[in-house]
C-alpha cells in the first residue's frame, strides 16, 4: 500500500531515518496531507522532495501549501507561512478536513489498540480519567484528524504497555470497537491505514478492522514485535522487511534536520548560536532545492 521506493538503498542510516522514510512512502503525489510536527512531518517533506512534489501540506494554524526554507518547528511556526498557497485560520483548515478534502492525517499517541484507537489524553494506571497516573497533553487536533482525514498514519513507540487490547481513553477514534462502528457515526474519514512503530509497520484488515503486522524493520523478528503487543497479533502471511531509506532520502533528511532535532538528540544540545546558524544555512540550502 505504500509507494515503492526507487533509488539505491542506504547502507548507513539510523532507525529515525528509516521511520521518516516509511512515513514519506505513505504519501502519494498530489495528496493533501495534514501534518503535525516531528518525524511524520519530516516524512511529508521528504515525500515532497522525492516522489510527491505536488503534495499539499496543511498545518493546524491555518496555512495551506506551505513550502518553507527551514525545518518546521511547530504547527504555528513561521515556517508554515512561508510560500503558503493560503494563509487562513485554524477553524477553516479543520473545516476543509471535515468537508473531506484531506487525504491523509498524521497522529501519535501514548497508547494504541488493535482497532487503531489512540490515547493521548491520560494513562489511568490505578486511577481514572479525573485522577490519572499520567496526564498527557490531550487531543489538540488529533480527534478531528482521526474523525475526518480520509486516512490516518499513526506513529507509535513499540511497547507492550502502549499496544493494548483497549486504550484507557479514546482521544482519537480508530475503528472504535470494530467493523461498522465508524459508519454509525458518519465520520468523514475512513480511519487509520497504517501504524509505524520503531520496530514494525502494521496495517488494518479490511474485514475485521484489526491491525496486523505487515513488515518488520531490518534486524527485528516477528517474535520481537509480538512480545511488545498486548493482543493476539495477526501476522501477514507474507510479512516483509521494511525497506531501508534510499541514499537520496537520507541525504534530504540530513539537509532538512541538519541538527538532528527530530532525528537525534539535537534538541538538547542546541545553543542560540548553533540555532541561528541552522536557520541561516537552511534558508540558503533549501531555497536552492525548491523550484522558484
Amino acid at each position: 500500500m505504500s509507494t515503492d521506493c526507487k533509488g539505491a538503498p542506504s547502507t548507513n542510516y539510523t532507525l529515525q531515518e528509516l521511520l521518516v522514510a516509511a512515513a514519506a512512502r505513505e504519501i502519494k503525489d498530489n495528496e493533501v496531507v495534514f501534518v503535525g510536527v516531528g518525524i511524520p512531518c519530516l516524512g511529508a517533506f521528504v515525500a515532497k522532495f522525492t516522489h510527491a512534489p505536488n503534495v499539499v501540506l496543511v498545518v493546524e494554524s491555518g496555512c495551506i501549501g506551505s513550502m518553507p526554507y527551514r525545518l518546521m518547528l511547530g504547527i504555528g511556526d513561521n515556517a508554515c507561512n512561508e510560500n503558503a498557497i493560503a494563509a487562513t485560520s485554524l477553524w477553516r483548515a479543520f473545516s476543509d478536513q471535515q468537508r473531506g478534502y484531506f487525504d491523509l492525517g498524521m497522529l501519535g499517541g501514548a497508547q494504541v489498540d488493535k482497532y487503531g484507537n489512540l490515547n493521548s489524553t491520560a494513562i489511568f494506571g490505578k486511577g481514572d480519567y479525573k485522577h490519572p497516573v499520567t496526564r498527557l497533553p490531550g487531543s489538540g487536533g488529533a480527534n478531528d484528524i482521526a474523525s475526518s482525514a480520509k486516512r490516518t498514519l499513526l506513529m507509535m513507540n513499540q511497547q507492550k504497555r502502549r499496544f493494548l487490547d483497549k486504550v484507557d481513553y479514546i482521544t482519537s477514534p480508530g475503528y472504535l470497537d470494530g467493523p461498522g462502528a465508524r459508519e454509525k457515526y458518519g465520520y468523514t474519514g475512513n480511519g487509520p491505514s497504517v501504524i509505524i512503530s520503531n520496530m514494525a509497520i502494521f496495517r488494518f484488515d479490511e474485514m475485521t478492522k484489526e491491525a496486523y503486522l505487515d513488515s518488520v524493520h531490518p534486524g527485528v523478528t516477528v517474535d520481537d514485535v509480538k512480545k511488545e503487543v498486548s493482543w493476539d497479533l495477526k501476522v501477514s502471511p507474507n510479512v516483509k522487511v521494511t525497506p531501508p531509506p534510499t541514499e537520496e532520502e537520507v541525504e534530504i533528511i540530513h539537509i532538512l534536520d541538519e541538527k538532528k532535532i527530530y532525528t537525534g538528540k539535537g534538541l538538547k544540545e542546541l545553543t542560540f548560536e548553533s540555532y541561528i546558524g541552522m536557520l541561516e544555512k537552511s534558508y540558503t540550502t533549501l531555497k536552492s532545492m525548491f523550484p522558484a
Partner: protein
Amino acid sequence: MDGIDSKKLLDKRISLKDAIAKFVFNGCSIAFSGMGGEQVVAPTYEIIRQGQKDLTLIGDSPCEPADFLIGTGQIKRMEVAWAAFAVAGVSQNYRNAVEKGIPHEIEVCEFSNYTMGLRFLAGSLGIPFMATKSLMGSSLEKYNDWIKVIDDPYKKKEGKIALVPAANPDVAIIHANQADKLGNTQFLGFSSNAENIARSAKRVIVTCEEIVSTNTIRKNSALTAIPQYVVDAVVELPYGSHPWNMPFTYAYDLPFHMEMIAQIETVDGFKKWIDKWAYGCKDHADYCEKVGWQRLHKLSSVEKQFYK
C-alpha cells in the same frame, strides 16, 4: 465594567498593565489567541504580576497561559483541547495539578482543537452551538456533558451529529502583528482562531508588535482579521510572544524555550523562573532587557532573511 463603551473609543491605546487591570478580574473566564507561534506570553506574565484569581481558561492549545497560570494557582477551570509546549516539552504544571493536585486541583473540560475553534465560531456568530462530525464515539464525548450527540433533524433516516456549545469568555487577549489605535487588527500570516476568539468575548485586549496608522490598515484591508468594533483596548507590545515566534517578525527562540522547560520541570524551578521573569521584571520592557535586546534583534533579523 464602567459606563463608557470602550469599543467606541477613538483611541484605545493603553499600557499592558492598565489593560490587564481593567479587563481581567477575579473569577473571570479568559481566552488567549495563538497556536504555538503568536502565543500570548507577555500578557500572561502581567497577569501573574497582578495575581487575578479563580480564572476559567477557555482555549484551544494554550502553552504559557495554561502552564504558568496553573503553576501560580490562578486557574480554577480549563476548557481546552491540549496543554503542553509542543516540540519543547510537556506541561509539568498541568500534570502536577491533575495528577497530584499541586498547587491545587483544577476542573478540566475537554474538547479538540477544531471543536474549540467551533465553540469560538459559534460565540462569534452569537448563536448557542455548532454542529460537528468530530468527538462522536470518542472518550471526549463520554466524559464531557457539554458535548451533545443529537439526531440530525434534516436527515430522513438515522443520522447523528455532535453539538458543542458557544464559548463566550469575559475577556480575550489577542496578540497580532499590527493594529491601529482604533483596534483594527491584522495578522501578516495565519490567524489560528484569533478572529473568532476576539468576537466571542465580551471584552477584547489586542496586543500587537506594532501600532500602525489606519491608512496602513486600509491599504491591506484583506489582512484585517478583527475590526475596531470588536476591540476594547490596544497595547503595543513588541516581542510579546517571545520565546515563541511571530510570523514575518521574529523567529522562534527554541534554545530559550528548552532552557525554560528544563528549569520549570520542578515546582521549585518553576517558582524561580516566575520570580525572575514575572515578579522580577516590572514590565515587558524589563523582560526584554533581561532576555537581551541583541538576542531579540537577532531573532528578528534572521526571520527577515526568509522574505528576501
